[in-house]
Each structure stands twice: as structure tokens, then as C-alpha cells.
């Protein structure tokens, strides 16, 4: 049943959820796209961020977004620590491809089991005054539960883009992804720069986790449902492209929403990933990736 109101709603809903997808995928873009670290545990770190927001929200009544922001420095340090272990154990020895992957699998299980033991396996949610309310703008209903995560995701994307393009360390991160030997010759320590970048990637998981638990309840293993999606978005956007990640996430969100609305929700993943395959067939480096 087609109507322009329904079309507009579907597009807006897709943009909102796409923004959230971008927030979850940015860490992958940094770690995998720029640093070539296949951090499949990133969604597990996002869930860790969700639980951090849950603990602070349920214990102290703090807004989940504030909780997510507060925990970013902690996650940043955690990310640096994880990268140091990864580098010393695998990357330094040239064993990052398969053994490094197993390392991150192990981190997934450690996070999931730790959360299960500490908090149980029941679904957890956060409470905020605006969750459940929506703003009516003409024919569109903007649910705050989705609009606020989308807005925060845009802010995060902009912040990362500015960091990478306008700051010394940001440019150093981009440089290390291109030629870390040249960077070393310039007097910068590539390992330190990569640790910094990985720390930022994990820090984004703190905020992304807070946004996730605002959208819906979480349990320790729910992160696995996002592994395929976040890597698909990072690849579709172009490896290492922050802007590309945002665009890819929005495209995926809108496609899923349009398909769900007009053809049936069961088709949504097929259409989204079908477009991914199509784009990669035409442009293997992704939408905004560098060719070759």
C-alpha cells in the first residue's frame, strides 16, 4: 500500500537507524579500514558500552548518553591496552592475520561471559524521560529513541572527521595506514600512533553502546547480530573513510526501511547486502575508498 506519507516516513526512519549504524561502525572503519586490524570484537565492546550505560543509569539515574560520553576515556585506555597486547603477540611477529583474528574471537567470549556472570543473561534497558516519546513534524513521527542516537552519531562522525583531517595525531593516523615506515622515518612511532587510533576506535564503542541500549534492550551476546552489518558498512563506505561510513550506513538504513515498509521485512537484509555486492562489483574499493 503506497502513499507519499509512508514513503517519507520510511526514508526518515531509515536515516535515523542508519545514523545509529554509523555510530556502531565508525570503530571498525578506524581499526579495520585504517589500521588493518580485524577487530571482530568491536560489537562486543559496544555491548560493554551498553552495560556501562545501564549500570550508571540504573544505579545513579544518569542519562545514558552522558554515561556513554563519561566512559569514553576509560574505553580509550582499554583500547590502547588491547592494541598493545595484540601488537606484541601477533602484529610484531607478522602473525596478525589468523592468530590475530582468534585473539579477537577470544575477546568476544571474555566480554560476553564476564557480562553474563556479572549481570546475568536477562535483557537490560535504560530509562530516560524522552525514551518512548516522539515529535510529530507534519506527516512524520520522530521517535526520540532513534532521533537522539542519530544526532549523536552525526556529531561523533563530524568529530572524528575533524580529528583525522585537522589535527597532528589525526593526520599521523592516516599516515600510518598509508606507509608506516615513512612515518617512522619522520620521527613518529607508528606503534604508538596505531595504539592511539585503536583506543579511539574502542572509545567510540562506549558511546555506540549507550545509543544501542537506548534503542532496545540488550543481553551479553546480542553484539554478534551486528558483526556482519558493521563490517559491511565499513567496506561499502570505503576502507578508512569516515564520511563513507556515514553514507554507507545511511544507505543501508534507508534501503532496509524502504524494503521493510513496501515489500516485507524478510527481504530487507537481502536487498541491503545485495546492494553491497553490486557496489563492490562496480567499485571494489567502496563508495569513498581509494582505488587500487
Amino acid at each position, binding site marked *: 500500500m503506497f502513499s507519499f506519507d509512508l514513503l517519507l*516516513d520510511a526514508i526518515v526512519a531509515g536515516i535515523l537507524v542508519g545514523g545509529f549504524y554509523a555510530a556502531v561502525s565508525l570503530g571498525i572503519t578506524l581499526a579495520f579500514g585504517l589500521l588493518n586490524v580485524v577487530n571482530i570484537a568491536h560489537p562486543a565492546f559496544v555491548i560493554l558500552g551498553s552495560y556501562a550505560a545501564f549500570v550508571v543509569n540504573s544505579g545513579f539515574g544518569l542519562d545514558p548518553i552522558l554515561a556513554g560520553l563519561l566512559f569514553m576515556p576509560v574505553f580509550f585506555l582499554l583500547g590502547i591496552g588491547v592494541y598493545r597486547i595484540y601488537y606484541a603477540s601477533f602484529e610484531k611477529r607478522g602473525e596478525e592475520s589468523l592468530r590475530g583474528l582468534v585473539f579477537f574471537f577470544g575477546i568476544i567470549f571474555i566480554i560476553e561471559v564476564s557480562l553474563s556472570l556479572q549481570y546475568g543473561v536477562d535483557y537490560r534497558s535504560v530509562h530516560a524521560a524522552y525514551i*518512548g516519546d516522539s515529535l510529530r513534524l507534519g506527516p512524520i513521527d520522530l*521517535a526520540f529513541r532513534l532521533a537522539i542516537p542519530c544526532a549523536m552519531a552525526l556529531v561523533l562522525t563530524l568529530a572524528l572527521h575533524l580529528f583525522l583531517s585537522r589535527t597532528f595525531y589525526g593526520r599521523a593516523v592516516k599516515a600510518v595506514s598509508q606507509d608506516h615506515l615513512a612515518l617512522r622515518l619522520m620521527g613518529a612511532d607508528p606503534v604508538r600512533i596505531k595504539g592511539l587510533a585503536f583506543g579511539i576506535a574502542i572509545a567510540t564503542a562506549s558511546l555506540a553502546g549507550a545509543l544501542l541500549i537506548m*534503542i532496545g534492550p540488550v543481553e551479553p551476546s546480542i553484539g554478534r547480530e551486528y558483526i556482519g552489518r558493521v563490517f559491511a558498512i565499513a567496506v561499502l563506505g570505503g576502507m578508512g573513510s569516515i564520511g563513507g561510513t556515514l553514507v554507507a550506513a545511511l544507505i543501508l538504513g534507508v534501503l532496509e526501511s524502504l524494503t521493510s515498509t513496501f515489500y516485507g521485512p524478510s527481504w530487507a537484509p537481502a536487498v541491503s547486502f545485495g546492494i553491497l555486492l553490486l557496489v563492490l562489483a562496480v567499485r571494489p574499493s567502496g563508495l569513498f575508498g581509494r582505488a587500487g
Partner: protein
Amino acid sequence: MARMLRSVRGMRAWGVVTALIGALGLVAVWAPPAVAEGPIKIGFGMALTGGVAGNGKAALLAMQIWAEDVNKKGGLLGRKVELVYYDDQSKAATVPGIYTKLLDVDKVDLVVSGYGTNLIAPAMPIVIERKLTFIGLFGLAVNEQFHYPHYFGIMPAGPSPKTDWSAGFFEIAGRQNPKPRTVALVGADAEYGQNALAGARENAKTHGLRVVYDKAYPPATADFTPIVRAIQATDPDVVFVASYPPDSAGMLRAAHEVGLKPKLFGGGMAGLQFASLQTALGPMLEGVVNYEFWVPERTLKFPGIEDFLKRYQERAKAAGVDPLGHYLPPWAYADLQVLGQAVEATKSLDQQKIGEYIRTHEHDTVAGKIKFAPNGEWAKSRVLMVQFQNIENNDLKQFGEPGHRVVIYPDEWKSGTLIYPYAKAKR
């Protein structure tokens, strides 16, 4: 002379051998039977991690309480009971391997299922092949294709589970004046959702409701706003949802946000029975009519249920499971009660005898009396339709008290009156 001596020695040797053989034969005949050693092992897979682990762990706690209760009274057949279980991670693919291990490596004496249709069905080929009696915990129409005579469902859905599941919901719709005319059907694209929707289609036809929306969504759906919007565009009188816990929360939140207000909403939303989602959704639940199996209403005071729940609740917090335990735990306990009663009554671990006993007898459990139909489902449906009423806030306490999940159907267990339409209940 020497030949005579050799002959005597040979005769003596044969004499000794003959005596030994005779002694062994006597021992074999007169030796007492070997005493049964070790506990009776009951094996199963259970979701201890993954999407349905919230229920799985609660079920496990109930089963452990049963084992302790039985062992305090001396066990079964004079032997202690031991539960042998593995985490199926809420994944169907793990189940065949788990049950093969239980039977071939752990050598369990009896098996029961894990929780939920998706985790019971994969075990069926193994139990059928080994001719085992198998009790399924909350499986919807699992045996409909297998027609296995020794499958028994602890699920009060009735002899035709697919249709019995939602029969009450549509019966409530059918009793309204004016009668609703259209229905939207939506459910998870998984075993439970598909079975529930199949039954809902039949019930809609029975009650003369025109289906204006009929779609399934993939289980990993993040946002339900487009789905709810599409449903809203068809303007249905009734919306039947067959969803899993996180989807139920997502669907209800989306419905609340876009202002979807059919005359009747709910039906088959799994998760609205869990304390964690009840407290998360709070007043959004007001007016929803949904399935339940037990609620703390005055009409459902089965013998032993309150004592069991009290003991469960004392341990629930430490175990990190549902603090109220109204949904699955009484049934997990009843599951093993049925099995234990059959073992004691037949005085054996013979699968055929146990199965035959279960089929032909009524069983007293904390979840009430249970009698099975020939297909292993319940002889009579006891799927309750309750309406959430007077949900003031997000506090857990109200859900443990009567008057907040009011039984509307069946009439036999009714404890209150339906507030209709849904919008009126939402105030």
C-alpha cells in the same frame, strides 16, 4: 608303573578342572544381582547464553530445585538424580551434538528438552532414532510433522497447538460488538513466529477477519518503526504479533511512538512475561492483550505453586535470573515432575513404559493437572489471554501482585474484565 602314575595325575587334573567349572556354574546361578550404582542421570541442552538465555537459566534453576527436592526424599528408584546439561547458546545448530554427547558419552538415563521450539525440534531426530521418551519445554507444534508417540509437550497450548495458541486472542475479538473486521499479522521469521502466524491465519478465517497485513521480519531487526508504520497504513482493527523478547519490546515501543492504536493489540508477544521487559516497558504495556501461562491472579492458585515460587525467588537474584519466575520456571519444574512421577510409577527407566505411563495418566504438578492428548500436546488448552491493566510505572512489585495482568480468557480462569478498545485502556 610310570604309565599308571601319569594316568592318575591326568585324572586328578581333569577332576580339578571339572570341579572348578562346576563351582563357577554354581556361583553364576546363586550370585546376587549386581546392585545399581550411581545416580539416575537426566540430560538436556539449555540456553544459558544467547537470545533466550534469560528464560533458559531460569528454567535451569527450577530444574535444579526439583532435583534437590527429589534427592531430599531419596531420589528416584532409590537412586539420586543428577542433571547433566550443556549450554546450547540459544542456537539450534548446537542441539544435535549436545544430545549425541549426552547419550553416547555421558550415557544419561533420560533426556528432556531445552527451552523453546527452535531448540527442541533439532533434538527430535535423535530421540526418535533412539526411541526415547522426550518431554519438550515450551515448544509450539514441534511434533506436528514428526508424529512421534513418545513426545510430550509441557506447553498448555492444547491438542492443536498452532491454532490453540492464538484461539483465545481471536475469540476475544470475536466477542466484541461491533465485531472487528480486519487483522494485521506480523511475526518473527523463525520456527515459533511462523507456527504462531499459521495458527493465527486459521483463527482469523474462523472469525471472519480479513487479513490486511501478513508479513514476517528477520530476527536481527534493529528498528520496528517501518514495520509498524506499514501496519498502521492498513488501518487494521486487530494486530496480532508473534515476536521474540527483544522484538516484542521494539514492536511495542514503535507502536507507542507512531501512535498505532488498533482495537486489540498483542496476542503472541514472547518477552512481555519477563520481569526485565515488564519493568523496561512499564506503562507502555497498558491495554496489551497477550498470552500467559500463569499469573498471580486468584483463579490460578494451584497446589504447590506459591511455595515453589517463594523458593525460586529466594535464589533468583543470586542466580541472575528473572526475579519473579512466573513464566517458565513453574513449567520447567512440572516438566521434571511428570518425568519423575512416571519413573516412580513404572519402577523403571524403560523409555517405552515411561512414555506409555505419561500418555495414559493425568499428572499433578505445581502448574496444575496435566493430561496429554494422543499427539503429545495437552488434551485441553490452557493458554491464558491476559490484559495489562493499572500499570502505573516501571516498578517490578506491581507485576507480582494480582490486578495488573488480568485473565480475560478462558472463562474458566477469568479474573477480570477486558478494557476495549485498546485506545480506551491507553487512556
